[in-house]
Structures are given as C-alpha cells and as structure tokens.
C-alpha cells in the first residue's frame, strides 16, 4: 500500500523534517506513528497525501509514485485516500450531512451517489440521527466522527489520521479509536499519528517511532514508550 525509500524532507527554511526514511505499510494494516512533537509525524503524513513533495527519495501510495506526481494529478491521489485532522476542519455553515456530502460534490459526484454514500458513512460513524445539525451543536467526538465520515465517503483504501484525538477527552478518544478499529477491520489501511500514550498502549498495534526525522524503532504490537514492549515480553 505504502512504500518510502530514502525519503528526506527539507523545508524551504532549512528545517530537516525527515531524514532518509524507509518504511513499508501493507494493505489493511493499522499503524501508529509516535514521537515527540516536531519529530516528523505530520511531515510524513503530509508527504503521503502530497501536501508537500519530498526533497529526496521515492514514495509510492497505492501504486502511485507520489514523489514525482504532477500537480494536476494530485486530486486523483487525494480521492483515493482520506485525511483526518486534530482540528476536524469542518465547515461551520454546513450541516453534518452537507459537510460529508461536500467531499463528493466538489469532486463532481452524481447526486444519486451522494444520496447513497452519505447515509452509509453517517451510519458507519453513528451520526445518522444528527445529520441535520451544525458542527457547533456537536461534541468534539461527534465533530471528529463527522470528519471521519467525510474522509471515508469516497471509499478510500487508506485513511490518514493526524492527531485525531488531540482535542478530545478520554471517553471521546476511546470512541474514535474504536471507530478507527472497525474501519480497519473492513479492510481500510489506517495510519494514526499520535502522542496519546493510552491509545497506543490499549490498541497494541504496529508502532513506528520517529525521532528527529528518523525512524528509530518499528514494532508489531508495540507500546508508546520504547522498551516497555520488550519488558512485557520478557516478564511475560
């Protein structure tokens, strides 16, 4: 699904966000990207949906060579993946239904597809009964679920979540993670960048740890803190 080979990203201001990163993520995987703020988690995400282009290296997402993608082909890539952010990025003057439908409408979908797909994803995230509400009338968790519904409405094979629980309390965080787990079970590859220890430790999924732009560890069924996993294995 995703492959990075020797990927470096240096921003115009000279900051080296990523340094020679190699990473492979298979179809249907659930991967946490962890690390301190400013270690390149978000930069890695931004490379995957081509918000930025790498300075060096090759990136392939779902068969598309993202590093040499022409500007006019970027929309085609974006339609094959969904992105969710910490701040939800919902439109406050549109209802839940309109926010989700927006993603289809602006990509030229037919009205009958909008009518079919929007209820499906609203059902999936459990917001069918609030589809006429505005974002300001929803809890943080519900807003994030709306954002996830919008990201999923195109039926993407890959869902990128950058700090999805950053603004949420523990209960809502659990809710969102449960939703992401279910989405993953349906076959969607999910990548979650987070520094929420509880989330990572409870889910026990693959953990890719970044530090200063490099991948320092990559564990199956990992924990948030390095070493904790091995300790458990040793003691267990």
């Amino acid at each position, binding site marked *: 699904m995703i492959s990075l080979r020797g990927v470096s990203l240096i921003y115009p201001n000279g900051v080296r966000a990523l340094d020679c990163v190699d990473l492979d993520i298979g179809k249907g995987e659930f991967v946490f990207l962890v690390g301190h703020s400013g270690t390149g988690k978000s930069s890695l995400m931004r490379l995957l*949906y081509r918000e930025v282009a790498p300075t060096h290296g090759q990136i392939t997402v779902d068969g598309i060579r993202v590093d040499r993608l022409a500007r*006019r082909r*970027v*929309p*085609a*890539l*974006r*339609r094959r993946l969904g*992105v969710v952010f910490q701040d939800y*990025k919902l*439109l406050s003057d549109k209802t839940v239904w309109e926010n989700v439908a*927006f*993603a289809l*409408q*602006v*990509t*030229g979908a*037919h*009205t009958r597809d*909008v009518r079919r797909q929007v209820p499906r994803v609203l059902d999936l995230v459990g917001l069918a009964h609030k589809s006429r509400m505005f974002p300001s009338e929803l809890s943080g968790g519900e807003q994030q679920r709306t954002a996830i519904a*919008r990201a999923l409405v*195109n039926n993407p094979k890959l869902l990128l979540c950058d700090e999805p629980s950053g603004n949420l309390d523990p209960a809502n965080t659990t809710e969102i993670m449960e939703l992401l787990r279910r989405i993953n079970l349906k076959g969607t590859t999910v990548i979650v960048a987070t520094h929420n220890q509880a989330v990572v430790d409870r889910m026990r999924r693959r953990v890719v740890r970044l530090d200063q732009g490099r991948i320092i560890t990559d564990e199956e069924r990992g924990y948030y803190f390095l070493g904790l996993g091995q300790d458990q294995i040793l003691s267990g």
Partner: protein
Amino acid sequence: MDWGRIRFFLGEVARNFTRNAGMQATAIGTVAVTIVLLGAFLYVRASVAHLGSDVFNQIVISVYLNSSASAAQEDTLRSAFARDPRISGVQFVSKAQGLAELRRRMKGEVDTSLLTENPLPDMFRVHVRNAQEVPAVARSIAKMPGVQKALYGQEVVARLLQLAALGRRIGIAVIVLFLLVAGIIISNTIRLTVYARRREISIMQLVGATNMYIRLPFICEGLLAGLAGAAIAVGALAILRASLVPKIASALPWLQMNTFSIDLSSLVLQLVAVGAAVGVISSWIAVGRYLRT
C-alpha cells in the same frame, strides 16, 4: 442532466456573490463606468468618423496660375487633373469671376470700388477624394508648369488631423486605464471572497477537487460582476442617447451626426463582451495566484 449538481454549484456561486455585497457593488459600478465611457467613445467615434470626412471633404486646393500662363498650359493642367484618380472634381475660376466673388465676400467690410484693377490670377479649385491625400496632391500640382501656387490651408488641415488623432489616443488611454482599474477592483473583490472561503478551498483541495472545479465558482462570480456592470452601462448609454442626441442635433445642426449608420446591436454586444472578459480575466488571475501557493 444532474440537477442536484447544478443546484449545488449555483448555490456556491450565489453565496460567493452575496458575501461581499459592498465590494461587489463597487466592482460592478467600476465596470459600468468603464463601459459607459467605452460605449460613448465608440458611439461618438462612429458618428464623428462620418462628420470628419464631411469636414475634410470641404478642403479644396486653390491652384493659382501664373499671370503669364498660356491657354495651352491651362488645357494641359485640366487634362492632368482629369487623369489623376485622387482628384474628384475641378472648377475653373477666371480672374473676372474671382474678382466678383471677392467683391461679394468683402461687401460691407471693404470699399471694393477702390479696386480699380484686377489683381487676381486665374485659378482652379481642385477637390480631392481623400483628405489625407490633399498635401501630396497639392505638392504635385505646385510643380506643374504655369502654376504659381497651390494652397489649401496647410496649417489648418494639419492641425485638424493632429487633433483628431490626439483625441482618439486620449480616448483609448482613458478607456485602457479604466479597464485596468475595473480589472483590479474585480480581482480584489474575488480575492476577498477567496480569502473568506480559504477554509473551504483547503478542504476542497484535501478531498481531491480539481483546481478547475475550485476556480469555476469564482470565475462565474467575476463573470456575473462583469455582465452586471455591462448591463447597467448599456442601460445608462441608452438613456443618454435618447436624451442627448436629439439635443445635440438641434443645437448643432451643421454637425450632421450620422447616427443611423451605427449598428447598435453589435455595439451592445461588444460592450457586454468587454464586461464579461474583464470579469473572467481578472477573477482568473485572482484565484490563480491563490491556488498556486
């Protein structure tokens, strides 16, 4: 036809258009003023083109003959004029006729009875088909044998031609300036809308809307502003024409404005096209700048 899609799109355009009503009104007003100027200019030019040819058609070359010119030389000149395709008509004025005309013109101002001798030479009045050719024709006539002088009021004609050219240039400059101003104002209005909608635009980009799709509502907004301005301008021009043209015609009857020959529908079409073009081009530039960064 997918009416849901069309309704969604039109809804977006309408929301854009009404978001900065004040700025939008300014943009429309500027387009309207520009197009009124342009329309008045084109209208006046079309009617004055005719007027100008009238004035210039009245230019006559007075060819004064030497007092010693022979009848043979006179005939040679006559046939030379007849052969010259640039010359449309020739009139011979003998000394005696010339004196009679002079007496008539000077009557009351000068005591013409004092003129005991006839000081005038024989002359031809030469009419030229095209005002622009008057100087060249006069020069060639002056070189012919038996001709003393060929006069046509050189300074006046040159001045008139200069004035006409200057007027045209100033008019064009003013219109270009106004078109630029209108373009800048529309472009700024669109930029405000773009700015107000930057969140929506970033989400559109995120979910994979093409730049063309993102651009289209803004282009339509510019087009609407341009068309609205043009419509107001055409209305204003129609009122101006209905109220002013008869007044001018009665106040300056010698002007003989040939307004019937102007193709009004094509003029209106041109003005509307200019409005639409200003709107589309300036909004295209405004959004393009934003999408590239």
